[in-house]
């Protein structure tokens, strides 16, 4: 039940533009059932869906005012925020374990320290890249102790299979797929080093139409709860949309924890840590105040209002 009694703004948007992405199963569910259209049709608001192929694309769309809501990894949003992108993370669509360090099944590499001097594929600036840096840091290794080969996610997977690199900071669904079809194994996995799937809104939109942000979050909640209850069907939707095998899709779904949707301290802490690491590796500038950035980015107030 969404009440608009406390409406601060009389106006309503003409159109609401959301993104959907294969890395955000809830967005697929939402799109599949047409709940958003259903909700806003009554008010005469149009709904547009745009597909994001990755966090970088979602941010590009947000930044250029091409979408109002965009799904990204938390760290990616932080990097953009440090570049003055006017966005706020208002919702956690899942705590995914979408990245880990992967190697071929027959490889002698079994722990992070074995990676010393080896070729590791990763896509710069993405969550897997951050994951790789953080796992190395945990072992006391510097980025220069391994040879990081910058490859797009798909190319990295192919390069690993073809034996052109020794390990790969993988991303689902590629990672799940290789696991199923190639029998690749994990060198290191740690769900806590993944930086959450955040739903971001353009600050301008949030300021102008706060109640519509809440409405969208309400809808996301509906999809989240449905997904938890109907994991089988959610898997099917993912498999269909992303043209994945059932098995791969199931693996990807099980690696998503849909339990804690409200952004808060956990995310604050994880992002601050990731941010500091990014600062030492030069991705975020030295002069930026990470804590301040994270505080500006994470805005739990909308979700807190909707979700009890």
């Amino acid at each position, binding site marked *: 039940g969404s009440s608009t009694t406390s409406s601060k703004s009389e106006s309503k948007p003409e159109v609401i533009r959301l993104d959907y992405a294969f890395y955000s199963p809830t967005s697929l569910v939402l799109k599949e059932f047409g709940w958003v259209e259903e909700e806003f049709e009554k008010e005469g608001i149009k709904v547009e869906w745009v597909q994001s192929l990755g966090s970088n694309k979602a941010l590009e769309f947000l930044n250029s005012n091409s979408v109002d809501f965009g799904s990204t990894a938390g760290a990616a949003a932080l990097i953009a925020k440090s570049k003055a992108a006017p966005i706020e993370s208002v919702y956690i669509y899942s705590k995914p374990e979408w990245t880990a360090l992967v190697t071929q099944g027959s490889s002698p590499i079994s722990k992070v320290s074995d990676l010393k001097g080896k070729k590791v594929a990763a896509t710069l600036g993405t969550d897997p890249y951050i994951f790789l840096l953080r796992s190395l840091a945990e072992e006391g290794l510097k980025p220069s102790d391994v040879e990081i080969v910058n490859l797009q*996610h798909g190319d990295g997977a192919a390069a690993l299979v073809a034996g052109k690199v020794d390990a790969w900071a993988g991303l689902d669904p590629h990672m799940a797929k290789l696991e199923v079809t190639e029998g690749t194994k994990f060198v290191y996995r740690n769900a806590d080093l993944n930086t959450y799937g955040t739903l971001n809104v353009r600050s301008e939109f949030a300021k102008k139409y706060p109640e519509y942000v809440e409405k969208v979050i309400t809808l996301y909640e509906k999809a989240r709860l449905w997904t938890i209850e109907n994991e089988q069907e959610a898997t099917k939707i993912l498999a269909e949309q992303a043209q994945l095998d059932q098995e791969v899709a199931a693996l990807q779904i099980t690696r998503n924890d849909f339990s804690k949707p409200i952004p808060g301290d956990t995310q604050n802490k994880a992002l601050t840590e990731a941010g500091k690491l990014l600062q030492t590796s030069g991705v975020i500038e030295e002069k930026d105040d990470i804590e301040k950035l994270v505080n500006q980015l994470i805005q739990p107030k909308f979700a807190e209002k909707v979700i009890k």
Partner: protein
Amino acid sequence: MSQQTETNVIKPIRSNFKLSISLTKWTTSSKQVVIGSILPITLLLLWELLSRVGVIPPNQLPAPTVIFLKIVTMIQDGSLWGHVGITFFRVFIGFLLGTVVALLLGALVGFFRFAEELIDPLLQAFRSIPSLAWVPLFILWFSIGETSKILLIAVGVFFPVYLNIVSGVKGVDRKLIEVGRIYGFSTYQLIKNIIIPASLPSFLVGLRSGLGLGWMFVVAAELMGASTGLGYLLVFGQNMSSPDIIIASIFLFALLGKLTDFTLKVIEHKALHWQDSLSSSQGNER
């Protein structure tokens, strides 16, 4: 002396022709199709063989039959037409747009030295900006609708057409232009009646180059928030690590590119029959 080499060169062609001259025209061109298919078919067979034997692992490069089946599946579930249709549409409109602008600017720059000095340096600088680099700018300027996609394709088409037109116009024989001057042709008449027909060969090459680039720019264009299209399919395949989708879309690119190029080639052949050149004289001698 070395005319020997020459006769050797021309003879097999002529004797081939003698063979087919008695057949209908259709047969001649179908013979060309057969010759043109030798290489692709050989390559396909080799690839299929190597896949079957296991030299090429299927997870990296699936066999042609696998890809063929994938395409058939896409035809059956109807998704193929959506992808091909929308991409074809975008390339077509972008191609038209790019060509028209290139024609206007190219004629201007080729003909007026001042326009050349003013505009050309800037355009030449833009020419080497990669399609991927335009993407963020286009998203910024035109958001992510059809407009930005079509415009990006038009940018790709523009440059080769422009370059060829400028060079074609500048290469027009002075002798012919003087004929127009004598008749007191206005600049517009000069361009229409002499410069365009005389630079037609160059223009047509530009068109074919431009069309090729149009197809190339589709991928970048469809990175801008598309959910259908061949370029989308390709990137989708890459993001999903589906080599069959990747190769299927590459194949479709090749096929469509080939078909559209063939159309232009036929037009080229029709439009240049007056040329007294190597190609037409070979035609005569056959």
